[in-house]
């Protein structure tokens, strides 16, 4: 079946200039050009975007949420990375 050769693409859309591209979903296509046209037809029928990125799903290397405990472990005990950790006089008006 020819369909088995289709690739899965992830679709990212920039809704407005100045904003990041945001993941909106995925689709199947033969190649990137086709994926881009499908994405236009499927995800931007109501002017949802000014720019589309398509990325082959197989090219995305993702972290696993099950590993979060060990993966993010060193970040958990550092409250001093936050501005609120520092207690300063009120007269400074929110430095």
């Amino acid at each position, binding site marked *: 079946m020819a369909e088995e050769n289709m690739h899965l693409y992830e679709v990212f859309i920039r809704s407005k200039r100045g904003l990041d591209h945001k993941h909106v979903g995925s689709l199947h296509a033969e190649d990137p050009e086709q994926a*881009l046209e499908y994405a236009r037809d499927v995800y931007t029928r109501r002017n949802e975007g000014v720019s589309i990125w398509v990325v082959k799903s197989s090219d995305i290397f993702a972290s696993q949420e099950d590993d979060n405990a060990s993966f993010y472990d060193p970040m958990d005990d550092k409250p001093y990375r936050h501005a609120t950790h*520092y207690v*300063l006089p009120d007269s400074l008006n929110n*430095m």
Partner: protein
Amino acid sequence: MSISTDKTEAELMAAFQARIDDEQKIEPKDWMPDAYRKNLIRQISQHAHSEVIGMQPEGNWITRAPTLRRKAILLAKVQDEGGHGLYLYSAAETLGVSREEMIAALQSGEAKYASIFNYPTLTWADIGAIGWLVDGAAIVNQVSLQRTSYGPYARGMVRICKEESFHQRQGYEIMLALSRGSDAQREMAQDAINRFWWPSLMMFGPHDADSAHSGKSMQWKIKRQSNDELRQKFVDQSVKQVEVLNLSLPDPDIKWNEERGHYDFGEIDWDEFKRSMTGGGPCSRQRVAHHVAAHEEGAWVRDALRAYRAKQKAQAEQAAA
């Protein structure tokens, strides 16, 4: 996907300026004048270099911080600066310049960075003064740049400003602790302010009338507020902050001007600024030499990563065969 166009340069330019005048961002794949691209590459890479070189004067005190808490805080801050350099190098790369080119320009002295990092950090109070004044000045500039016309730069600034919020507060907290301490500690804090105040004012660059890049930068909204406007904002906020410390700024001309609604202040020593900018700062040579050394001494790590990847690839191919 390239879009072919029959538009003339003048038409493209008009559309580009119209987009900017309409407060729309310019994004990497848009047509842009060469001078806009060049101007941005210069500014963003200088900004990135400043973040990375700025790790050195503060890094100097990591092993000497007075408590474990202060050490952990300073480590986290210096780590942030490295991250900010990375965000900015990435933003510059969207304009078609490579990381290697930018690093080479820094190491050859062709590219500049904020001259403030060419001053030594002599005492622990300097770490307080840098956080409060140097980061404070950088934040004033960066808050304004969140509205810069180039999308990737603006988005980088938003992220950086969010992360910077603790930098200034930790510096001020150091100054506050010293200002409430012994006479010697108060003197140390005052001495750090005396040395870092003027270089902090210089961070905003030359006066508007003498600024080589300002005209176009304002027209293209790369800069949203002029050097002098931003400097004034910084002076106004610092005068109030130094009062809480019960210390003083080393400028007898600072005085409230009712008419302007701002503090007047004295003239900057521009000869000193030029000396420091052109490599004559107290630590200029040391900063670049250290960067070169760190880059060269880190080569084995990059080599090891490449060798590991080659080995993995060979093993995978063997397994597949």
